């Protein structure tokens, strides 16, 4: 192929092509090996079982229900975050991507999107299990999905940033959660604040629901922008 036959797409389109290539590669590899998703789902379900017997409760509501659900999902997410860049580190993906004439923020966008896909897939399995174990009805599930989606975006943006830094450390399994957890405290406050009225006794309520959604949206925006602005520098030697 002659150079003039190559894609002459402008940079933005080229980034979109790179984004799709990296995301497709990650999802294909995960579907083939199932290295992250089953572990995340199994961890979450097991944790719900422990809470059920540890608390000796068959019903949870309000802040306790919100805390149990969010803490479980957060720690399950860390399993996926720890593995997010392992193939890039161990199989030379970082070098291959840095050699390509692409905007490296495509890697950040693709990895964050892959993490959102993982989190949503896990939640599709484990949130119904949570409802089965601890809730009266499934009435809270539709608005709960919106809260979790916004929380997933923020968690994916922060997790992708931290994972890309921690993967170069030999202690990456320790480093990622140690750095990540303080950073997601605001996200956790907003997520549990939005979940609490939804999981209240007697069915979902919406007291200050909009405010907490706005906080979640703001957190997502800030960390997506921080990731976009800094990721190129994080990939330097």
């Amino acid at each position: 192929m002659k150079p003039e036959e190559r894609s002459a797409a402008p940079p933005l389109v080229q980034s979109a092509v790179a984004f799709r290539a990296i995301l497709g590669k990650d999802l294909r590899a995960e579907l083939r090996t199932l290295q992250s998703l089953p572990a995340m789902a199994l961890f979450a379900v097991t944790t719900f079982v422990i809470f059920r017997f540890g608390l000796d409760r068959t019903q949870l509501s309000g802040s306790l229900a919100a805390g149990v659900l969010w803490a479980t999902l957060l720690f399950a997410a860390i399993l996926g975050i720890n593995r997010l860049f392992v193939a890039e580190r161990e199989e030379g993906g970082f070098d291959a991507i840095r050699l390509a004439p692409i905007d490296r923020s495509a890697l950040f966008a693709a990895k964050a999107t892959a993490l959102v896909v993982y989190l949503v897939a896990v939640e599709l399995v484990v949130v119904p299990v949570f409802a089965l174990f601890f809730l009266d009805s499934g009435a809270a599930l539709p608005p709960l999905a919106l809260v979790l989606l916004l929380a997933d975006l923020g968690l994916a943006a922060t997790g992708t940033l931290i994972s890309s830094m921690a993967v170069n450390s030999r202690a990456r399994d320790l480093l990622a959660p140690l750095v990540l957890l303080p950073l997601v405290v605001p996200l956790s406050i907003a997520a549990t604040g939005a979940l609490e009225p939804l999981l209240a006794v007697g069915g979902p309520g919406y007291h200050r629901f909009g405010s907490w959604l706005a906080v979640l949206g703001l957190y997502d925006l800030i960390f997506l922008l921080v990731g976009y602005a800094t990721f190129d520098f994080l990939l330097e030697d």
Partner: protein
Amino acid sequence: MNTAIELRGLCRDYGERPALAGVDLSLGRGESLLVVGPNGAGKTTLLRILATLLRPSAGEVRVFGAALPGEAWKVRGRIGLLGHEPLLYRDLSGRENLRFHARLHGLRGDGAEARIAELLAAVDMERRADDRVAELSAGMRQRLAVCRCVLHEPELLLLDEPDSNLDAEGRALARELVGPAEGRTRVVVTHDPERLLSEADEVLRLSTGGSAEPSEAASR
């Protein structure tokens, strides 16, 4: 401009330890440079700096006129690197890996598929192209790595022990793709200079600690 690579006082340190200490070099377009030296002399470090993967600690580096690392974006995509690692994902097949790299370099559609098929045939890997890389031998991975390196028809090839893990047939096939050719600038790192000396226009000898003797014209 006919200069492909220009180095002036190139230094690279890892903490207190110098890997390259003041390397000067000028290599014309279409020429081949052989880099030789003992383990730890900084050969791979030099290649990674030229590939825009590593920043120099001091000195001036120009590749096709672009000053690195600041103007690295100008030359990415014009460089093919064949290093110690094949840069292939173990859980994807060889063909899937090549498609991935093709897309990163802006090759798409039927043209990209034809190029991939052509390269797989050139290294005799068509039959195993759809097997996962994890299931392939080291020699087969190296053949795929050669395909990956030249997939986007780079103007500058950076080859670190390109014959690693290859049998005699593999070496001959790989040579067709990464050997000397018109318009192809090559930097080849090797521990076996005698065999490759006949292909080189210049030789750069590095010694432990990264100091370099002035590059010399190879006597073919």
